[in-house]
């Protein structure tokens, strides 16, 4: 082991992979020119931020929380309700996001101070209970939240599909490499750039002195306390930071989707997705968030199609077409997860990171 911190090959590969994904997302509207792909790209951006902020908790500090989706929901519902009540304007977006943010911070501080002193398992249960309450409230307060149906609203004018960012000589919407320069494109870049900023903030945080303290708390809580760190204060702080990030991601998603309901912003199935993404990507790596989010979102959108193709191709072979029947996609998704966890016990980024390192 030398004094210089030379990156092992595995680490270089992961960094390269993440940069490539970043570049693909940056040029996504030009590379994949259909609505569904753009939907997938935007969803990936949002989930990268959501998973990265969750990694701050579970991977870096060792806090298991099931309330992460609730903070996402606060942000989403904040923006949604404001856009619905005030009409589609930037003031509504800002006010709604700020409202969601305030609620998130207050709830995070309350939950954190009341329960981060207790054992990890109790804390996890408390977050589960809190998130369940939020979910029930969202579906019961239907006058306010739209109940199970959720809320549909308009995004600011800039993001309307009919909005022309540039016009050509005939007054039609201008095209760049065949892509219409319309509001949808603006909306995508709004999502991309805000998510990029949030992800970079998460990256900076784990590389800071505070990041080392968080890892120390994960590694040995009692020792961290004994050398002078107030563990409860640090835990509550990172819980708030993660909540704030998730809340902002929720607001951004609400603006993109122009719809917010329990299924898009509060349901526990999303919480499970986040958990899977962080585990598959690699806990405590931050880059794992990118890899996990990309894999899972793409699998959710395209595995069915792929299986349809496979099933067609195997037509005539006994049994196999049945096995690859598109409706069985969840079975295959499950098998893929099990294999990934088996072969990458520390997640993809976590396992590959140390490959090629010499000690």
């Amino acid at each position, binding site marked *: *082991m*030398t*004094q210089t*911190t030379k990156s092992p090959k595995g680490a270089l590969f992961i960094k390269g992979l993440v940069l490539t994904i970043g570049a693909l997302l940056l040029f996504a509207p030009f590379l994949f020119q259909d609505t569904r792909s753009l939907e997938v790209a935007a969803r990936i951006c949002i989930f990268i931020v959501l998973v990265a902020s969750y990694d701050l908790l579970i991977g870096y500090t060792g806090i298991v929380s099931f309330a992460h989706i609730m903070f996402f929901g606060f942000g989403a519902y904040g923006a949604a309700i404001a856009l619905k009540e005030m009409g589609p304007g930037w003031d509504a977006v800002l006010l709604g996001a700020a409202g969601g943010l305030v609620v998130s911070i207050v709830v995070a501080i309350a939950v954190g101070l009341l329960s981060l002193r207790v054992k990890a398992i109790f804390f996890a249960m408390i977050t589960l209970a809190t998130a369940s309450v939020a979910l029930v409230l969202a579906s019961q307060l239907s006058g306010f939240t739209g109940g199970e149906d959720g809320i549909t609203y308009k995004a600011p004018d800039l993001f309307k599909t009919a909005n022309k960012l540039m016009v050509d000589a005939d007054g039609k919407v201008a095209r760049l490499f065949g892509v219409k320069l319309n509001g949808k494109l603006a909306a995508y870049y709004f999502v991309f750039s805000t998510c990029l900023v949030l992800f970079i903030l998460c990256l*900076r*945080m784990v*590389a*800071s*002195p*505070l*990041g*080392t*303290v968080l*890892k*120390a708390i994960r*590694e*040995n809580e*009692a*020792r*961290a*306390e*004994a*050398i*002078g*760190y*107030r*563990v409860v204060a*640090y835990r509550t*702080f990172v819980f708030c*930071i993660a909540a704030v990030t998730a809340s902002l991601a929720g607001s951004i998603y609400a603006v993109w989707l122009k719809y917010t309901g329990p299924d898009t912003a509060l349901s526990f199935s999303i919480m499970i997705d986040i958990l899977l993404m962080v585990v598959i990507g690699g806990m405590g790596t931050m880059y794992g968030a990118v890899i996990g989010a990309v894999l899972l979102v793409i699998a959710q959108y395209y595995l069915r199609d792929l299986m349809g193709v496979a099933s067609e191709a195997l037509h005539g072979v006994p049994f196999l077409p049945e096995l690859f029947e598109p409706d069985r996609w969840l079975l295959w998704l499950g098998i893929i997860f099990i294999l990934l966890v088996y072969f990458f016990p520390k997640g993809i980024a976590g396992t590959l990171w140390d490959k090629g390192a010499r*000690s």
Partner: protein
Amino acid sequence: MRASASEPALVTENLTIRFGGHVAVNAVSCAFNPGELTVIVGPNGAGKTTYFNLISGQLPASEGRVLKGGEDITRLAPSARARRGIGRAFQLTNLFPALTVLENIRLAVQARSGHGWRFFSPVSRFASLTEEAEHYLEETKLSAKAHMTAAALPHGDQRKLEVALLMAMEPDIYMFDEPTAGMSLDHTPDVLELIAKLKQDKSKTILLVEHKMSVVRALADRIIVLHNGELLADGPPDEVMQSQVVREVYLGSSGEDAA
């Protein structure tokens, strides 16, 4: 209790902790002075580590007080006591295993200098933190292993890292709980040398729990004996080692009525 011209650095008054009906530390009153290395001895289960835990805050006192430089710190959290200059090392190796040796030390440096809350700039911006950490690695001869994880170190080096961690906190009061436990004999001198070096600074107060008599003889200015949670003897090494009471305790005969 020995009288000293200077103000005692640390005082325990009537310090007691009960676990249910069991009194683990029973009304121990003692003052520790700057420039003095006190070795705490006693049979297994005498309450030595528990006494340490009461001083550094890992356990709450049932009764009595702990005073540091005259300030009552009995109700403070361990982190608050650490920031007031109480440095505690543990009996079992107690490090941050997945972090590198350098990171372990830097954590102690940055806790003391109050940089723990800096969350926006990368660690590399705080060159002084790393420089200070490297200084302590040199002191403890761990520089060559700075980038190994603490878990990958041999046991002897882990004990040295434990000492380095404590030194990096720059406490007024050092508390070592069997620093040579589980070490092979040829590694023991390294750690003892480090403690002997700390002793040269006359402003520091050192408390040491130790079983090995060779260590006790080499380092102790004063010995206190705990038995069944009570303070049994207190004085200069020769005096305490000669005392009848202590001999009885160590030879296994009943010391109950001696207290």
